[in-house]
């Protein structure tokens, strides 16, 4: 696709196209001002801030327990991981030891939530590329996970389930057996997804070699999670900077090869299988016991600065808390993976046909609640 150059006989001019903020495939209120000539994109400039709710400003007037419901609404498809990230940072600051059962319940709910979030990626990514049916299958499976969470903590999306020092409720009777049954059934479903989509030649043609970037570009742009591992670079916080009890399970980190949409897609699918493995092992190792540690009635974080990041579904999700010893944080900054992952778009969208723009944006899988914060 040669760009328009001066020797053109037919005088063509670029067209400025506004993709978003209300567009079927921008995964939320995300706008891109795209300069295109014919079908090729010359320049793309992302515009964000449509979902900025000032969570960081609000957090400066809320006690730590009151901030937890706000973290549900950051990355609204994986609320458990947001809860855990905040709660983990405060626990590290206070140095509280978490009871064993609470750790296991946390790992089970986080991995199930990661699975649900990857299912959403799988469904909406195929919808962007034109196939309708995988979306329905993925959302039916996700519905089962959401029902289990509903039974566990009473909410479908905004769980507000984790507390500083453990989790709010213990698992209701029969819940762990339900999770076990779901994990077994889900393995069969994964085989169906592979047959339905992974082999499809049209899908491969749409996805292979599209939206490629190198490890240096990814590291320079602060990409994390699947968007970094798709270039073949092994950086998963659960293994590199271990937290919680991830070292008690044996699972590997799937790696891509050349950082294109295909690698990102296949990594999402393999990470789903890894999450299933972790949940399966956690179900065997979980023992009855308390779910909440001894925590002071009013949580005061000692003065100082704390940062700790965990492996969210879209990358490294961290909280930077500056505390002046009071029960409210002096400053709370949220390191949001989707905010960094979107910065590489202007570079990889140059000279790309319009059809691929949708494929690339879908593969980076941003969640706009997180980008705005």
């Amino acid at each position: 696709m040669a760009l328009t150059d001066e020797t053109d006989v037919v005088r063509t001019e670029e067209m400025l196209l506004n993709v978003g903020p209300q567009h079927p495939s921008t995964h939320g209120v995300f706008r891109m001002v795209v300069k295109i000539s014919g079908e090729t994109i010359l320049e793309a400039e992302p515009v964000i801030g449509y979902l900025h709710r000032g969570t960081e400003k609000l957090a400066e007037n809320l006690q730590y327990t009151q901030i937890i419901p706000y973290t549900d609404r950051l990355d609204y498809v994986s609320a458990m991981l947001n809860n855990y990230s905040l709660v983990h940072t405060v626990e590290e600051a206070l140095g509280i030891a978490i009871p064993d059962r609470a750790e296991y319940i946390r790992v089970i709910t986080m991995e199930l939530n990661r699975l649900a979030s990857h299912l959403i990626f799988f469904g909406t990514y195929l919808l962007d590329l034109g196939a309708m049916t995988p979306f329905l299958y993925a959302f039916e499976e996700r519905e089962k996970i959401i029902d289990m969470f509903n039974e566990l903590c009473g909410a479908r999306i905004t769980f507000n389930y984790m507390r500083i020092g453990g989790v709010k409720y213990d698992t209701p009777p029969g819940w762990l057996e339900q999770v076990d049954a779901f994990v077994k059934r889900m393995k069969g479903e994964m085989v169906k997804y592979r047959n339905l989509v992974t082999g499809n030649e049209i899908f491969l043609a749409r996805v292979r070699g599209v939206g490629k970037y190198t490890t240096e570009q990814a590291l320079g742009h602060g990409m994390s999670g699947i968007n970094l591992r798709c270039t073949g670079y092994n950086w998963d916080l659960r293994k590199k900077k271990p937290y919680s009890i991830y070292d008690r399970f044996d699972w590997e980190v799937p790696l891509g090869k050349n950082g294109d949409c295909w690698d990102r897609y296949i990594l999402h699918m393999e990470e789903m299988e890894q999450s299933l493995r972790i949940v399966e092992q956690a179900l065997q190792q979980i023992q009855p016991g308390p779910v909440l540690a001894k925590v002071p009635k009013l949580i005061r974080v000692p003065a100082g600065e704390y940062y700790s990041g965990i492996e969210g579904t879209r990358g490294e999700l961290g909280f930077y808390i500056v505390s002046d010893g009071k029960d409210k944080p002096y400053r709370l900054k949220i390191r949001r993976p989707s905010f960094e992952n979107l910065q590489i778009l202007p570079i990889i969208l140059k000279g790309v046909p319009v059809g691929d723009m949708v494929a690339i944006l879908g593969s980076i899988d941003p969640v706009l609640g997180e980008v705005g914060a």
Partner: protein
Amino acid sequence: MFGFLKGLGVTISQLPKKKVTLMYPDEKPEWPERFRGVHRFIPELCTVCNQCARICPTSCISLSGARDENRKLRIETYDINSDICILCSLCTEVCPTEAILMSDTFENASYVRDDLYLDMHWLYNNELEYERRHPDRAIPETDVQKKAGD
């Protein structure tokens, strides 16, 4: 080479599968016990300790009480502005006597914004409805009833 034929095989094999559609208006989904719908309130249990109003992140609970004849605190008005309530159930956590709880009425839409200001009577009715719908579920009792019970 024939990957898409496998895909076609998968879709056609789903044809006879059981359908998952729920006929919503006719069949209502039944929610688990811990489901967080609109609040329900038991005025006798409330000791007007103001904990719930203080913990609420969006401060949408406003209540007032007075001392009755034998110097005991009684609740008089208890309003929840469910327009900004985010149903996080922190209030039910901190309530020492479990006076405020979550019911499973989830149809909260209304045409008029005033309907979203739920007063004590509405919340208490919601409690009676909840008891009627779920007779088997345990209802917190006042300590008087507890003493009477055992």
